[in-house]
């Protein structure tokens, strides 16, 4: 426990840890000192002077050093002649702070009058109007009139786009510097800068494309005025007109908490539509932040191409039919004797869906397959991140090993939190085949060749090899807490399996499991892969063969045919394909029965995040006419087969899950809605303290315990490394990596991200391109697994010299490293 300091603020006695700033101490006591430039997640700078308060220190005798007493025996406090900024002054024992005296009120009034000298009074058309710190504080503390001359206001052209996502209105800027500091300090994307000084000061971006940061949306939340607003919400609605509905982001395994603001609209034909996504505070998951993918990637719900009716194949054509007819058809198929059933589930399904699918699958002795290219869900369930872990608690004494993961692209919020842990003093070891954004903050950077991931971890375990390996191994083994984060950079399922085994072995040998801030963390590519493992789904190394041999394949939330032509061929050989989808995907086109399903935003459910935090989300939008939830369809099919599957509510499904699934005993919907005490305290009533994000009134979720936490015996299997077989093939080795803005089904409908999508190219080193006489920007024909694809070429000196990198879900059918033949396309001469 840090030293505690007791002080008096407005006659209240407050005890806080030494080093706390006056504004924070006051807030803990329920006294709100107004601020503009201060943010509890950033270093104070004292730029706006809004937090001026009277500060008095206990007086000491100059000779003896003793405290001087008043006549009545109390300590004499001497107040400074001028006001001090509460956001930069740390508390001192015996200090007295006065925040409501006439002197400090006058100070605030003067500062507001000054800030408003050049602020345009265009609140009626400002997107921030209604949740604006300057508006609120002017109402509370401001002068009614200004002594400055109206005509002296500085005029600029109105909104200037900073990139495609953010608009800047320079007139409204009050020069608090929060956006610039956020970009520099918090997310290390120093793309915003001050230009000029004094009244001419402007915010500028010097990156290409403008404001090139995946966290740019957060600056609009923390901007205390309407200087930075998003293009997405430009003139979309007034803040007070919208309803708020809590949800969970469905784009990656972090599981960021967010709020969707919704409104009924005449423009959209009277439908309720989402107007924007805002972060919801969860200090265990996403703190106060959201990445731009989560903030802008909700447009797919409104996409016109949604499926609304069950489709059945009749005479080689998919025709709309009634639910009963579709159910009947499936029932007939499932009831046939000796039917070989395969259920292929994607990581977008909720725990309830997966549980019901698994029940249905089990009743037919089917095979439950998870559509994922990452292994290790069984190991994370056993020695995963211990219950009670929180990245915010990690600092000195913790060693974090990040292997085969470009966290910045795969899970932006984890990147942010790991980076911050490293800045607090955690030992960060980054092992990857290519440089990533995390290297800058790492104590040890290890390089290996693609394919050597598991061997690298084993080398760390032995502590042998090159110098940097022995040093990293020593640093990792000497820490108090140890954490291994593994991703899928350049890995297929086989490689992933080897890697996770090696990681598990390392953790077990070092004893880093079964306690908070220790264990294994997988950077899954979908929101609920961990939940799928827990519900009994596992990836299949021979998916092609499994699909080919199946009589009936149920495919939910996965598009194998669209992702990989080889799987499409395999599916053609499957007798009967049942697809649960939102859109008409390639797989759905091949199906015999297609069930339309609801989007995550239209339904209730729970996701288990990578940190194994179970979080629930609620219905945000009224669902469109037609589709049902996956769990309902699975349950109704189950009932037809004579099971007692639950189709009434996901709450009831969860009640079954907590009876049957290990680790989920304590999970109920009401417990998931429990709140937790969080710091900083944010509230909608005072948007000036921590931005316009929402407080968490809906529950922070529950982190489930691992087997090791519960003290159960572990069955980790043989953690033996199998030497990777050298593949003998000609051509270029292409490895898959994850890109944040890929061309996935849920991202494409967000027009605003269109320009930021990852280019459809093979990323290669100049040395490799020279070998094939390729140049940057060339078009090539790629022969992969019997198919030909046209792709671009991009040169990057950072990637390894012998392989080419290609992004997953970006139009290139790749799930694991492959060898391809390439041929340069000569552009046709222009006529």
């Amino acid at each position, binding site marked *: 426990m840090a030293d505690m300091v007791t002080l008096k603020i407005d006659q209240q006695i407050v005890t806080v840890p030494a080093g706390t700033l006056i504004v924070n101490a006051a807030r803990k006591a329920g006294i709100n000192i107004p601020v503009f430039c201060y943010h509890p997640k950033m270093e104070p700078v004292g730029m706006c002077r809004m937090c001026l308060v009277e500060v008095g220190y206990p007086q000491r005798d100059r000779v003896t050093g003793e405290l001087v007493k008043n006549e009545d025996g109390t300590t004499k406090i001497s107040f400074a002649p001028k006001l001090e900024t509460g956001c930069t002054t740390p508390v001192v024992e015996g200090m007295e702070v006065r925040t409501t005296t006439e002197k400090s009120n006058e100070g605030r009034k003067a500062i507001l009058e000054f800030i408003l000298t050049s602020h345009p009074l*265009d609140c*009626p*058309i400002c997107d921030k109007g209604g949740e604006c710190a300057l508006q609120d504080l002017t109402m509370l503390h401001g002068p009614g009139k200004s002594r400055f001359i109206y005509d002296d206001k500085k005029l600029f*052209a109105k909104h200037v786009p900073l990139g495609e996502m953010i608009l800047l209105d320079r007139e409204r800027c009050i020069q608090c510097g929060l956006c610039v500091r956020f970009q520099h300090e918090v997310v290390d994307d120093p793309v915003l800068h001050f230009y000029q000084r004094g009244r001419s000061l402007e915010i500028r971006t010097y990156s290409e494309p403008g404001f090139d940061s995946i966290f740019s949306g957060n600056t609009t939340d923390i901007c205390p005025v309407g200087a930075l607003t998003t293009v997405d919400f430009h003139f979309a609605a007034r803040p007070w007109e919208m309803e708020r509905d809590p949800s969970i982001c469905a784009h990656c395994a972090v599981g960021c908490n967010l709020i969707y603001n919704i409104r009924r609209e*005449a423009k959209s034909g009277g439908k309720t539509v989402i107007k924007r996504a805002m972060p919801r505070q969860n200090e265990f998951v996403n703190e106060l932040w959201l990445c731009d993918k989560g903030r802008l990637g909700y447009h797919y719900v409104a996409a016109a191409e949604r499926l609304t009716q069950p489709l059945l194949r009749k005479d080689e054509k998919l025709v709309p039919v009634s639910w009963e007819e579709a159910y009947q058809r499936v029932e007939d198929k499932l009831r046939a004797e000796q039917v070989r059933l395969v259920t292929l589930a994607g990581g977008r399904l909720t725990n309830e869906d997966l549980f019901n699918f698994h029940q249905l699958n089990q009743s037919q002795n089917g095979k439950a397959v998870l559509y994922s290219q990452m292994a290790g869900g069984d190991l994370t369930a056993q020695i995963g991140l211990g219950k009670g872990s929180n990245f915010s608690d990690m600092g000195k004494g913790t060693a974090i090993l990040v292997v085969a993961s470009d966290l910045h692209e795969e899970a932006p919020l984890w990147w942010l939190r790991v980076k911050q842990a490293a800045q607090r003093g955690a030992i960060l070891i980054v092992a990857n085949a290519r440089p990533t954004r995390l290297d800058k903050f790492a104590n040890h950077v290890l390089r290996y060749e693609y394919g050597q991931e598991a061997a690298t971890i084993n080398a760390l375990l032995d502590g042998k090899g090159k110098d940097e390996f022995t040093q990293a191994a020593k640093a990792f083994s000497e820490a108090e807490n140890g954490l291994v984060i593994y991703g899928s950079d350049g890995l297929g399922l086989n490689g992933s399996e080897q890697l996770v085994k090696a990681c598990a072995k390392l953790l077990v040998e070092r004893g880093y499991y079964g306690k908070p801030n220790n264990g294994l963390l997988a950077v899954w590519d979908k929101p609920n892969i961990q939940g799928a493992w827990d519900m009994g789904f596992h990836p299949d190394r021979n998916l092609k063969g499994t699909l080919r041999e199946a009589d009936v394949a149920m495919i939910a939330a996965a598009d194998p045919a669209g992702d990989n032509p080889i799987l499409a061929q395999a599916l053609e050989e499957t007798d009967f394909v049942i697809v649960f989808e939102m859109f008409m995907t390639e797989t759905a086109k091949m199906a015999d029965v297609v069930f339309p399903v609801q989007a995550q935003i239209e339904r209730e459910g729970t996701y288990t995040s990578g940190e194994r935090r179970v979080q629930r989300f609620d219905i945000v939008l009224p669902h469109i006419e037609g589709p049902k939830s996956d769990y309902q369809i699975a349950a109704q099919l189950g009932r037809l087969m004579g099971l007692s599957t639950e189709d009434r509510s996901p709450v009831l499904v969860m009640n079954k899950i907590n009876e049957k699934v290990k680790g989920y005993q304590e999970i109920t919907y009401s417990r998931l809605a429990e709140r937790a005490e969080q710091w900083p305290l944010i509230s909608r009533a005072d948007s000036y303290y921590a931005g316009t994000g929402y407080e968490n009134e809906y529950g922070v979720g529950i982190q489930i315990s691992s087997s090791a936490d519960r003290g159960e015996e572990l069955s980790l299997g043989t953690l033996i490394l199998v030497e990777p077989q050298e593949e003998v093939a000609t051509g270029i080795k292409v490895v898959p990596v994850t890109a944040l803005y890929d061309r996935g089904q849920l991202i494409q409908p967000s027009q605003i991200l269109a320009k930021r999508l990852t280019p459809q190219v093979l990323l290669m080193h100049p040395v490799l391109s020279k070998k094939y006489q390729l140049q940057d920007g060339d078009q090539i024909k790629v022969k992969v697994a019997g198919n030909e694809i046209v792709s671009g070429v991009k040169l990057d000196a950072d990637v390894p010299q012998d392989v080419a990198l290609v992004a997953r879900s970006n139009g290139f059918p790749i799930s694991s490293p492959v060898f391809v033949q390439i041929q340069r396309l000569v552009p046709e001469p222009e006529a």
Partner: protein
Amino acid sequence: MLKGLFTTLKIALEKPVTTQYPEQRRPVHTRFKGRHTLKRYENGLEKCIGCALCAAACPADAIFVEASENTDEERYSPGERYASTYEINMLRCIFCGFCEDSCPTEAIVLGDQYEMSFGDRHSSIYTKELLLEPVSGDAETTPQKTKPGEFTRSVPVMQDPQD
């Protein structure tokens, strides 16, 4: 009783106060609050900037506004923002005039028209087309094509603002 009869006779011989509505109409008071009109500037641009403060002030929740962005090619109002949807449900409206008070551009004005009748609920919703006043003189109607940089401010500086 005589006194009462006298009063009756006196009133009977007086000129009747009844007006022959609708042939005869009494003038309304200057501060009468009748049907709303959305005003225009002299150049034909709409005064309404779609800020929805009227909707926020409305105690009967009768107003619905949606805003969009102006361009110089298609300009409806000065500045960046205009009302792309403006609806008032006259059945809900209680003619309190709060919308008029809250309007930062004096765009909405409650006029002297009080004769409104609707055959069904749907027709009680007055759309922007019904509420906008016609352009005066030879001004062009909206949307207008304007020169860049000509109309950059949404909220005009009021020379002599009155209540």
